[in-house]
């Protein structure tokens, strides 16, 4: 295995990690309007991912940065080629990120409703579009001999890639429902359970269809084996969900996401972005990669620092491991009616405290 192969694996790990973690963030955001009956519910839902969503999103930035460093050719063709799709993803992620911070900063229900919409759309749109993007990466896009994308936005909207989008959308939504089941109590948890059961069958059908199509059209024996693991994990996760095993169902669904991403990357290898037009335009691990020295340096950095990051990020999940319930959302004390002339209540009680 050469260094650029190692980096191909690392990029796959980073995307898997991103989808595993931000996958349930997206799911929670998508389910926000459907699971909550009132603002206390909504705040419980949002607070389940409150301490971790930003750290989860860094997996995306690291995947992007690592692709730039290890495969500049891939980064350049991919990001310029998928231009408008990425613009939409950027707008969605921006709106979603500020929405978490802004929604509780003003007591007006319309204000909150607006940001709740931003959280929903900011979660649903990337959940869909990342799948579309990965479908196109595996399927290939029109590239000229200089590796420049020659299609347009609609080139990306082919049936296979759209099915990929539906796969990530449904998988992440299910992932979010299973996460909420794991992290909440009472009625909210029951609603999350009902949604998870409702989503299970369509998700299995869509994901199995996409994986099957991937393997038939673009796969090989090894990727098909991993795709089978993904399908089994997905089914086992659903079975566990039906038997009320919260931890196992969430873990297995996460494993299904990781295995599905792995299957796509294995199917892709040794290409990183195939050309559907000029064969000379196909980007591979060798023609898109950085030189040996850069890969060596970056390997050392990754080997030394990744365990450190995983340790403290894992610790965060440990610190915030408890379930949240409605009683954790402290409603505003009477003393916090606010000072005259100031439109928001006093700090310290304007965004009532959550303790878990």
């Amino acid at each position, binding site marked *: 295995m050469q260094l650029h192969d190692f980096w191909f694996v690392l990029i796959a790990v980073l995307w898997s990690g991103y989808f595993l973690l931000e996958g349930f963030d997206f799911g929670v955001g998508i389910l926000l309007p459907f699971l909550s009956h009132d603002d206390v519910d909504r705040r419980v839902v949002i607070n389940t991912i409150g301490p971790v969503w930003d750290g989860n999103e860094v997996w995306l930035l690291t995947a992007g940065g690592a692709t*730039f460093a290890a495969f500049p050719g891939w980064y350049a063709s991919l990001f310029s080629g998928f231009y408008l799709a990425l613009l939409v993803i950027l707008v969605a992620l921006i709106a979603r990120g500020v929405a978490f911070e802004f929604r509780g900063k003003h007591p007006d229900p319309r204000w909150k409703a607006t940001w709740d919409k931003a959280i929903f759309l900011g979660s649903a749109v990337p959940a869909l579009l990342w799948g579309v993007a990965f479908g196109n990466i595996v399927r290939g896009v029109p590239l000229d001999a200089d590796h420049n994308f020659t299609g347009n936005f609609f080139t990306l909207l082919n049936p296979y890639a759209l099915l990929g989008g539906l796969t990530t959308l449904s998988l992440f939504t299910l992932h979010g429902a299973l996460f909420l089941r794991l992290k909440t109590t009472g009625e909210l948890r029951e609603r999350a359970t009902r949604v998870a059961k409702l989503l299970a069958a369509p998700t299995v059908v869509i994901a199995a269809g996409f994986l099957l199509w991937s393997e038939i059209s673009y796969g090989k024996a090894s990727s098909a084996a991993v795709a089978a693991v993904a399908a089994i994990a997905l089914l086992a996760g659903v079975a566990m969900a039906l038997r009320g095993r919260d931890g196992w169902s969430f873990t297995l669904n996460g494993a299904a996401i990781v295995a599905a991403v792995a299957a796509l990357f294995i199917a892709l290898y040794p290409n990183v972005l195939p050309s559907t037009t000029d064969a000379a335009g196909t980007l591979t691990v060798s023609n898109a990669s950085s030189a040996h020295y850069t890969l060596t340096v970056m390997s050392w950095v990754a080997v030394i620092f990744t365990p450190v990051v995983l340790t403290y990020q894992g610790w965060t999940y440990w610190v915030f491991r408890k379930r949240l319930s409605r009683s954790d959302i402290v409603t505003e004390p009477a003393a916090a009616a606010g000072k005259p002339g100031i439109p928001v209540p006093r*700090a310290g009680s304007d965004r009532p405290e*959550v303790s878990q």
Partner: protein
Amino acid sequence: MKGVNPLTLARWQFGITTVYHFLFVPLTIGLSLLVAIMQTAWYRTGQPRYLRMTKFWGKLFLINFAMGVVTGIVQEFQFGMNWSDYSRFVGDVFGAPLAMEALLAFFLESTFLGLWIFGWGKLPKGVHLATIWCASIGTAISAYFILAANSFMQHPVGYTIDAEKHRAVLTDIWAVLGNTTTLIAFPHTIFASILTGGVFVVAVSAWYLRKGRDVDVYRPSMRLALVATVVAGLGLAISGDIDGKVMTTQQPMKMAAAEALYHTSKPAPFSLFTIGSLNGHDEVFSIKVPRALSFLATGTFTGEVKGIDDLNRQYQQTYGPGDYRPMIAVTYWSFRLMIGFGLLAALIAALGLWVLRKGRSPTGRRFYTAALWSLPLPFLANSVGWIFTEMGRQPWLVFGKLKTEAGVSPSVSGGEVLTSLIVLTALYGVLAVVDAVLMVRYARVGPPAEQAATEPEPVFAY
């Protein structure tokens, strides 16, 4: 869409998104440090006012932090989106510090900030204090790596050119990370960030002290921030002075353009301001300090400073025919405005230290009014500072190696860049208004009451 030049639009987009992003970044770096110091004071003394300070400024810090994070994603993506040929050319070198920034800095600041926000009353006090320091250190590490990447564009080192593949190839990572340009730009940026955080705290505190509200919280806030601002101002002057000399050797055209100095001069004067055209011969009126530019650029009062015209001829011989002059009006004015805004902010802070010395208070409200109105100064200085640095490098994208026009994405149409420019600018505009309104609101809410502040529940949860 034909007739729309993607190059010009991509440059505008980079300028707008970068200046906008950098409104929030220095405040994040500076304010996180001040909040960490406040919380340390609380941890060490147990005095409730320090906790109230931590919570009040912490809330404003978080509103600002969110904006810095989300606008940062655009920064990483747009190299590939708008500048794909640039990314192909430099990726082998430039990608490394970016990836390191994500792995070493972004994870640190995001994860530990999450722990800080939600960890009140949940983590032991000492551990909780450590989380804000980790987040704060993360923001500074992030600045280092992105400056190392930017410095490669200003002064490329540690690489060779692979002519066959037409790209730069990294040969020495330590040269890239230890680039003299980075070593001087980093303290300059950190001091600018501390100045920004300092002036922010000074200005908001002044609003309260002018009304005599919550003096026990805002007087110590003000004193801490005044000291930070004055120290940062001194640091900026010293690092800026060294930076000027480094820049004169590495990018002499940028220094000449900063001064609109057309002819090589020995000694060279520093022009304070100019009325009339800056084209070198239609000047109406200008105030010049004799020999000052020589000192700024070379460290001696008699040193020779090369002029724009001579450098342009020299570059034409080295790099072939072309125009190697940046836009002189932009570099000239951004350079002196950067110094002017920064200096004024530091002077107001120095005045504040004097009027508030040894428990005194200013007799009138004039100082507080001045302090309040000094709020925009560091933001303006930061913006024009980066505009100077980046515009002064033109026409180069990587100095001496790749021109800006050669870096733009060949596959992206003018219409696409225009779409993204309009969408992002509109979105940023709306968010700027929302953010400003929230900042003002929360700045006016005041600190939590003593009892509320010491309650064990977390204050910052969503």
